[in-house]
């Protein structure tokens, strides 16, 4: 059997080429794999959801009520055996995807793994994170309950607030001024076909490049076996670990999904005239905090083009993300990085990363300004100064705990 396949598919050549790739052993190296597991879970649960979902906001009669068809079909999904659990799994897996991808990115940042030759994979990684957030956002809109209609409406208006191009772009992606009868079909196509294809392709490229370039080696490998590649081979050891981890992942996720139903649509009901008091999911809170912080007086007109506070609220974070893309390109180097750098040996970088995390936390706190009754002035203080203070403190602490060693670079 094997030789029959081997003759036709040259399996043993592929085995030698790819399946013997060494995977370094370190717990922080599993974050990327967890991201892939959640993608697989999303696809599998998504198949189930997609074949039961009706992408339409036509009103249908359900019992005594008139409900949008999309909403009614989600009610139908919830009524199927394990339907609610599978829908919750889909929701939680999306959260895990974004969280794991983000932590993976922080790990890369802290250990300098984004440096030459791995800049391309850094950029692909950031693209993956951005598309994942878009997929999460378009997924929000589909059940078409009061919550999703509100969140998507705000998303549409943010897109429409982009000067000059905004209205056109918004109407392109949301099928006219949201909500129209074209909106849900279009968002469905984006969520179920195009984004998964793009994300799948990017994951493929990401992993392929990782295979070609090889992992960066953990620092201990330099001492144990300098110049050699240390780790367990992909087949069979690493594959076995991954298989077990995936099973555990799905098990835990199913349990969480069974215990905590995500977005129970009856809670908000179908969209009505009033806006429910809602906050977006946690990964949007920092953006949401920004939207709330920009004072109403921040608007101006240049060359007859109106720029309002709602656009400035997204402009600042987008500039940050753009900077993230260019980040490794700003540090040209001659040598290729083989061994990970220890965060303790690069106190400036480590402190900056901690400062950036503090920035995200501060703008997330801004999202709760009303609940915590914080004034806008204080929020600005918190968001601008807080991260700087945290970064400086982190730097001083790192310096105190890990005194500078001979020859260690300070970047």
């Amino acid at each position, binding site marked *: 059997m094997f030789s029959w396949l081997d003759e036709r598919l040259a399996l043993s050549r592929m085995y030698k080429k790819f399946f013997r790739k060494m995977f370094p052993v370190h717990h922080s190296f599993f974050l990327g794999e967890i991201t892939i597991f959640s993608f697989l879970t999303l696809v599998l649960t998504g198949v189930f959801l997609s074949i039961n979902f009706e992408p339409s906001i036509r009103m249908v009669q359900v019992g005594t009520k008139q409900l949008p068809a999309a909403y009614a079909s989600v009610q139908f999904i919830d009524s199927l055996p394990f339907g609610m659990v599978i829908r919750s799994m889909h929701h939680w897996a999306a959260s895990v995807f974004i969280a794991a991808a983000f932590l993976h990115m922080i790990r890369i940042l802290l250990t300098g793994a984004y440096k030459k030759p791995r800049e391309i994979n850094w950029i692909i990684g950031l693209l993956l994170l951005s598309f994942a957030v878009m997929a999460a956002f378009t997924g929000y809109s589909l059940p078409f309950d009061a919550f999703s209609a509100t969140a998507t409406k705000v998303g549409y208006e943010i897109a429409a607030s982009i000067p000059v191009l905004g209205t056109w772009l918004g*109407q392109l992606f949301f099928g006219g001024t949201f909500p129209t009868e074209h909106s849900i079909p279009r968002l469905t196509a984006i969520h179920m076909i195009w984004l998964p294809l793009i994300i799948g392709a990017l994951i493929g490229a990401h992993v392929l490049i990782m295979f070609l370039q090889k992992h960066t080696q953990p620092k201990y490998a330099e001492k144990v076996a300098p110049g050699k590649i240390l780790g367990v081979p992909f087949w069979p050891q690493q594959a076995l670990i991954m298989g077990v981890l995936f099973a555990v992942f799905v098990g835990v996720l199913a349990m969480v999904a069974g215990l905590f139903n995500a977005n129970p649509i009856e809670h908000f009901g179908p969209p009505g005239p009033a806006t429910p008091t809602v906050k977006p999911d946690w990964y949007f809170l920092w953006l949401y905090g920004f939207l709330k912080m920009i004072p109403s007086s921040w608007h101006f007109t240049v060359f007859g083009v109106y720029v309002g506070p709602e656009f400035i609220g997204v402009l600042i974070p987008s500039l940050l993300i753009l900077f993230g893309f260019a980040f490794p390109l700003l540090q040209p180097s001659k040598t290729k990085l083989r061994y990970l750098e220890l965060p303790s040996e690069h106190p400036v970088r480590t402190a900056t990363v901690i400062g950036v995390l503090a920035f995200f936390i501060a703008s997330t706190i801004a999202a709760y300004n009303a609940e915590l009754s914080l004034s806008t002035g204080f929020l600005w203080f918190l968001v601008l100064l807080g991260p700087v203070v945290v970064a400086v403190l982190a730097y001083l602490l790192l310096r105190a705990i890990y005194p500078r060693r001979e020859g260690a670079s300070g970047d």
Partner: protein
Amino acid sequence: MTPNDDAPTGAPRSAQADDEARARAEAEDQEALIQRRRFLQAGIGVTVALTVTGLSALSVTGSLRPIAKITPQQEPPADGDILVRADDTTRVVQASDIPVDQKQVLCYPKDPKSGVVKNGTDNNLVMLQRFDASQLGPDTTPHAADGVVGYSAVCTHLCCTVSDWDSKNGWLLCPCHHSQFDPRADGKVMGGPAPRPLPLLPLRASNGQIVVAGGFLTSVGCS
């Protein structure tokens, strides 16, 4: 071949060679002409093909932005419209239905002649509130009917419905990003990110009923 061989026959041969060379040159010219012509033809062909493809692609791209149709349900409120409750469009709103100094009541305009309830778009959502006439600002008073004021319920920030009421300050409150508006003073922004005041809807009273006295004073919507 020796050089001597060449010498005597040199002249006639060279004439012959000239002829040949001329013929060859002519042929080459001809060839070049044909090639140039072909190049031109190909160029024109490609240009035409690209233009046709481009135009078709443009029209497809254009169609991705759906045409907005205005149905009678989406017509903006007009003079003479009555107001019905948003949660029950069969109930016409009377001034006496609106409690003084309380949370806003969401309504849609209704054309009394055709009987069309204009609830086809959120842009027609109107919120009504009633205050003691002495509390209303000078710009708001002329548009109020028996102390009832009407505003567009569409937040000028990102178009959520301004459906909450901050009873402590007496301000309208948008649940999305916490913009606050003063309904007694022209819908002025009192806090939060909203860039413009809420558009006012002029009202008048006729036999205890609230009637729209004209379109929104400023444009409805956000950005």
